C-alpha cells in the first residue's frame, strides 16, 4: 500500500472491440510496486476482457500496456503471446478455475516453473546431472509455494480432487511459481464461503508483504476489496468511471449508482 512506489504496470487508453461491440473503452490504470490494486464493476463491465488484453489472450484494438521492471527497460506488452507476457513477469489466475486436473498438485505448480527453467528435449532424454539438478530445484521451489499457500498435505493428490477453496489457492501457487512481478487475480474469492474468503485475504496480504510483488485483482466481494486493496478502479459498460482509495470509491455517487447501490448505506 505504498503510494510513493515506482510505477510497475501502466495501461493507457486500452480499447478492445469485438466486431461492433466495444467491450473496453479507453481504460487507463496504473499499478505501483508493492500495492494491491483492485478492479471492480458490475457483471459484464469488461473487467475480465481487460485482464485478457493485459495478459495477451486478446490483442487490444488500441492503447498501450507498458511494464516497467526495476532496473530494466520499459516493455510494451501489446501483441505479445500470453506465454511471453508471463515470461515478462505477469502471472494470472482464472475466474473459472483452470487447473490441470489430471496432474498432481505438485506438478501443477511445477508447470509454473517451466518458463524459468531451460532443459530441452535432448538434455531431458540424456538426463545429465544438470537436468537432474534443475528438476530437483523445480520440485523444491514448487514445494515452497505449496507450503506458502498451505497445500502441502495434498502434494500427490490429483488437482481435480481438491476442494474448491484449495483449488483457488493452488491456482495462486501455480501463478506465483512463475516468479512474477505482478500477480493478476481474476475473482479469487468467487464461490468461496466467508471462512475461505478470510483465509484468502490473509494469503493475499502475506504474498504481497513477503514477496514484495504487486497484485491486481478483479473482485466481486466488496468487503474483501475494501479491506485489502488501495487504489480501486471501477468500470461500467467498458468505461472507467472512478478510481481512488476505498473511501473515495465508496462515496463516489457514480459508483453507488452503478454498482454498490444500497449496499453502502447498509
Amino acid at each position, binding site marked *: 500500500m505504498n503510494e510513493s512506489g515506482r510505477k510497475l504496470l501502466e495501461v493507457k487508453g486500452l480499447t478492445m472491440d469485438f466486431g461492433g461491440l466495444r467491450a473496453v473503452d479507453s481504460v487507463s490504470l496504473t499499478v505501483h510496486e508493492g500495492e494491491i490494486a483492485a478492479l471492480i464493476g458490475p457483471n459484464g463491465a469488461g473487467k475480465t476482457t481487460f485482464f485478457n488484453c493485459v*495478459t495477451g*489472450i486478446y490483442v487490444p484494438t488500441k492503447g498501450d500496456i507498458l511494464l516497467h521492471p526495476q532496473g530494466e527497460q520499459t516493455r510494451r506488452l501489446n501483441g505479445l*503471446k*500470453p*506465454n511471453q507476457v*508471463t*515470461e515478462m513477469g505477469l*502471472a*494470472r489466475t*482464472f475466474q473459472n478455475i*483452470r*487447473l*490441470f*486436473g*489430471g*496432474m*498432481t498438485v*505438485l*506438478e501443477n505448480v*511445477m*508447470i*509454473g516453473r*517451466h*518458463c*524459468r*527453467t531451460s*532443459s*530441452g*528435449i535432448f538434455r*531431458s*532424454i540424456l*538426463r545429465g546431472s544438470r*537436468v537432474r539438478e*534443475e*528438476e*530437483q*530445484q*523445480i*520440485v*523444491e*521451489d514448487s*514445494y*515452497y*509455494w505449496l*507450503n*506458502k499457500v*498451505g497445500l*502441502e498435505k495434498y*502434494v*500427490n493428490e*490429483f488437482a481435480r*480432487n481438491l*476442494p474448491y477453496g484449495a483449488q483457488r489457492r493452488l491456482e495462486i501457487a*501455480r*501463478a506465483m511459481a*512463475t516468479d512474477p512481478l505482478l500477480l493478476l487475480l481474476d475473482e479469487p474469492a468467487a464461490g468461496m464461503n466467508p471462512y475461505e474468503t478470510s*483465509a484468502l485475504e*490473509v494469503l493475499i496480504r502475506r504474498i504481497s508483504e*513477503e*514477496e514484495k510483488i504487486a497484485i491486481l485483482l478483479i473482485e466481486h466481494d466488496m468487503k474483501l476489496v475494501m479491506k485489502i486493496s488501495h487504489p480501486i478502479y471501477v468500470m461500467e459498460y467498458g468505461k472507467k468511471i472512478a478510481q481512488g482509495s476505498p473511501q473515495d470509491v465508496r462515496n463516489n455517487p457514480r459508483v453507488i449508482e452503478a454498482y454498490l447501490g444500497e449496499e453502502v448505506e447498509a
Partner: protein
Amino acid sequence: MKIILRDFKKSLLISLWFMFLTFPLVVVRVNTIENVVVWRWSNLIWVAAGSFFLSYLWRYMLARRNRRRKIAEEGVETRGRLQMLLENEQLRNRVLAILLALALVFPLVFDTYQTNIMVTALIFVVLGLGLNIGVGLAGLLDLGYVAFFGLGAYCYAILNHNFDLGFWFVLPIGGMIGCLFGVILGFPILRLRGDYLAIVTLGFGMLFRVIMENWETLSSGPSGIANIDRPGLFGLEMTLAQSTTYIYYIMVALVVLTIIVTNRLKNSRIGRAWIALREDEVACVAMGIDMGRTKLSAYALGAFWAGMVGVIFAAKTTFINPASFTFMESAIILSIVVLGGMGSILGVILGAFILILLPEYLRAFAEYRMLIFGAAMVLMMIFRPQGLISGLRQVYTYKGHKTHVGVKEQPINE
C-alpha cells in the same frame, strides 16, 4: 442383499423376455420336406441361461462402476490393487527385468512363425508409444499417424533400391524424415483443436497413400517395391529363420530404447508441458509455455518413432505397397493408445499386445474378428473409458534443504 435380489428378478424377467422373443426363431423349426414341426426345446434353455447370465453380469458391473464413482466423488482415494502395485517402483523394476528376460529367450523357445508374430506386435508397441506422445500426452488427436510409418518404410525401400544404402544407415534417416514431416505437418495445424485437428491429420494419412499409389516413378505405384534388403550383420549370410530372430532382437532393442526415451521425456519439463497442454490449453499458455514449440515437439517426436519403425517394417517384410498403410492401421494404433490408457506407457504396451496378438491367435474366429473388436471397444468405453491403465501419478521426493532462490523459508500458520 436387497439389490442383489432385485437384480436377480430383473435378470430373470429379461431372460423370460428373450425366451419369448427368440422362441419362433430358435425353437420352432418347420421341416418342409417331411411336413413336420420340430421343437428344439434345448435351445430355449441355452437362450435362457445365456441371457440371464449376461444380464446379471451387466447389472453387476454397472453397479460396481457406480459404487466406485460414488466413492470417487466423496474424495476418498480410489486406487485399484494393480495401480498400487504399479506405483511401487521396486516391484515394478523387478517385473520389468523378468519381462525383458522372457523377451530375450522368446525366439529360442518358439519357432519362426511365433517370432514373426511377435515382431509385428513389437512394431505396434513402438508405433503405439510414438502416437502416445502426441495423443496420450499432448492430447493432439492424430488419425493419420500411419503416414509417418509409411514414410519410414518407403524411405528405406527407395534408398535401398536406388542407392543401395544399408539398413543401419537408413534407420536414423527414416526417423529423421518422419520427424521432418511431423514438423512440416505440424505448422499448419498448430491452431487447430479436437475435431478439426483429427480431420486434417486424417487427410494427411489419406494423402500419403494416394501419392504413393500414383507417383509411379518414385514408388512403383500400387504394385509396391519388392526385394528390399533385410538388415545386415557385418555381411553375414543368414537364413530366413536367423534373419527373423535378428530382426526380433533389433525390435526388442528398439522397444527398450523407446520405453526409456518416452519415459524420460514424460517425466521431464517437456513432458509436463505436453500433459499441461492436454489438460488445458489456455491455462498452459498463461503459465508461460510456448504452445507452438510444445505442439511441434510432440508431433515431431511422435513421428520420429513411426519413421524409424517403418524402416524396420520394410526390412522385415522385404516388400511394401501402399495397401499396408491404410486408415485401418491408423485406427488400430489409435485404439492401442485408447485401450491401453492415454499417456500410460505400460498401458500402451499392454494394448498393443492385446490388439495385435489376440486376432493372430483367434484366427478360428476370423469372421467375427471385427464384431468382437467393436463389442470390446464399446464395453471398454462403458466400463473403463480411461483405458486399461491410467491415473498413475508421478511422485517427486522433496529433500527440503534447498529453498526458493532469495526467499526465506517461513513456517505456515493459519
